[in-house]
C-alpha cells in the first residue's frame, strides 16, 4: 500500500484533518484500540493481515508502507 493510502486511513481512524508520512500513530493520539482499526482497514484494502507488534515496530505511514510493499514483493509473504 502507498503512503498516501495509509495517511488517509490514519487520518480517518484518528479523526485528524491530516497526517504526515513520518508521523508516529501513537504520538498523534492513537492507542492500541485505534491501532487495531488501522490494521482492519489495511486488511480490507488488500494490504494483508498485520499483527499489533508489526504496527508498533512500524508506526508511521511511511514505515508501514515500506513493510507492506516488502511483504508483497517477497514470495514467502514475509518481510525480507
Amino acid at each position, binding site marked *: 500500500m502507498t503512503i498516501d493510502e495509509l495517511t488517509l486511513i490514519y487520518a480517518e481512524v484518528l479523526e485528524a484533518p491530516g497526517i504526515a508520512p513520518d508521523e508516529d500513530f501513537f504520538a498523534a493520539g492513537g492507542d492500541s484500540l485505534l*491501532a487495531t*482499526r488501522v490494521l482492519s482497514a489495511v486488511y480490507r484494502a488488500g494490504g494483508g*493481515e498485520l499483527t499489533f507488534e508489526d504496527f508498533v515496530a512500524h508506526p508511521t505511514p511511511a514505515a508501514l508502507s515500506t513493510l507492506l510493499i516488502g511483504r508483497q514483493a517477497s514470495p514467502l509473504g514475509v518481510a525480507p
Partner: protein
Amino acid sequence: MVGAGLAGLTAATRLAEAGADVTVLEARGRVGGRTHGLEVAPGAWVDAGAAYLGERHTALLDLLARLGLKTVPTGMDGASRFALHGDAVEQRDGRFPPLAAVALGDLFDRLDALTRRVDPAAPWATEGAAALDTLTADAWARANLAHPDARTFFPLFLGEMMAAAPEDVSVLHMAFYLRSGGGLRYLNAFAGGAQESRVDGGAHQACELLAERLAGRVLLGRPVTSVHQDAHGVTVEGHFRADAVVVAVPPLLADAIDFRPGLPAPRSGRATAPGCAVKVHLVYPAPLWREQGLSGWSVSAQGPLTSTVDDSPAGGGAGVLTGFVTGADAHRFAALGESERRAAATAQAARLFPGLPEPIAVHVTDWVHERWSRGCYAALLGPGDWLATGPRLTERHHRVHWAGTETSTEFFGLMEGAIRSGHRAALSVLEGHDA
C-alpha cells in the same frame, strides 16, 4: 431526598444551597451508594465500588476540587498477563492481548458504527431504535463476529466496559452506553480515558464530605417504601412531609416503592437486570508485581477474575490487585460460599502471577446481591427496555423528581452521570416549586 449516593447528595447540596429545607433518607447505615471505601491496611483505602475517572468527567472533578479531594493516576506501566487460550498464561508488553489485531479491529469498527448511530440525548428516538432494541448483544455478536478471537474478546470487553454479559443487554443499550461514556476509545482507555485516575484515599470520601456538610439532614437506616402525594404535598414513609421528593436510587429499587398516585409506567423495563459486578481485592504487603516488571493488568477468558488491575493505595501501606468478576461469571461467583470465593480468586491470582506470595487478605464485594443497590456499575437494559422507559427517564411524576446515574444520558452508569443527574434533578425541583 431518597438515597444518599452521589446523585442524591449532589441534589440535596444544591437544593440546600438554594435555601430549601432538605432531608435525605438513606436505607443503609452509611452514605455513598455504589461508592464504598474499604480500609485494607491502617490508613490505606481502596474502592470497593466506583473508582475511576477521566478529564471529561468535569462535574466530578469540580466536586472533588470543591471538597479538597485529590486524584492519583492509575498506574499501567509494565507487562500484562493473559490467559486467553486454555490454561496457558502469556505475557505481553503493554495492554494489547495476544489475539488477532485485525479481528479485534473489525469488532471495534462494527461497535463504533453502532455507537455513532445512537441518538445520545434520547437513545429511544434513534433512527431504527426498534430494531436495535429487539436484539441482544449476544445475538448481534453471533450474527456479526466470525473470527474466534473477536468472539473470545467481545464478552470480556463488554464485561469490563459495562459489567454485562452479552445476553443481558440490547444492542441499543450497548451502543448507547458506549456512546454516553465518550465512545469506544475514551471508555476503554486508562491514560487519556475514563480510567485515567482514582480519588486519592477513595471515591467514597466525596459522599462522606457532602453528608458532613448537610449536618444532621442525612438520616441513615431509613429505607423508603412509600411516597404518597396529595393536592398540597408529599408524604414519605407516612411521616416526612415535603413539597417535592427526589428519588435518587437505581430503577429496580425505585419500582419497589409504593407510589400514590401510581407511576404511569415502571422505572425499569421487563428485561432490566442488575449490573453484574463483583469486585475482589487481593491484598499484598506491597505492589510486588512491579518488581517483576508487571503492571498488575491481566485478562482471562475463564473466570472468576476476568481482569485484574493494580489499585494499590498511592500513599503505600499495601499492594492491591483488584479483580473484576463480571457478566455471567459474577452470578456463578456470587453463589459460592465465602471460603470458596477466596479459594477461587486466590488460585486464579496464583496462576496469573506465579511470582506472588499468597495474599495477606482477600475482600469480596458482591454488588449483584447488594440489597440497596441491586447491581453495579448500573442497571442493564435488555430488549424493549429503552423504548418502554426512555421517554419518561427524567419526566417528573407530579412532585416526584428523578436522579441517579441511570437517569443521565451523559456518562450513564458512571459517577459523572450520577452527579450530573443530581444537578438536573435539583434544578427540576427549583423550577417546579418556586420557593
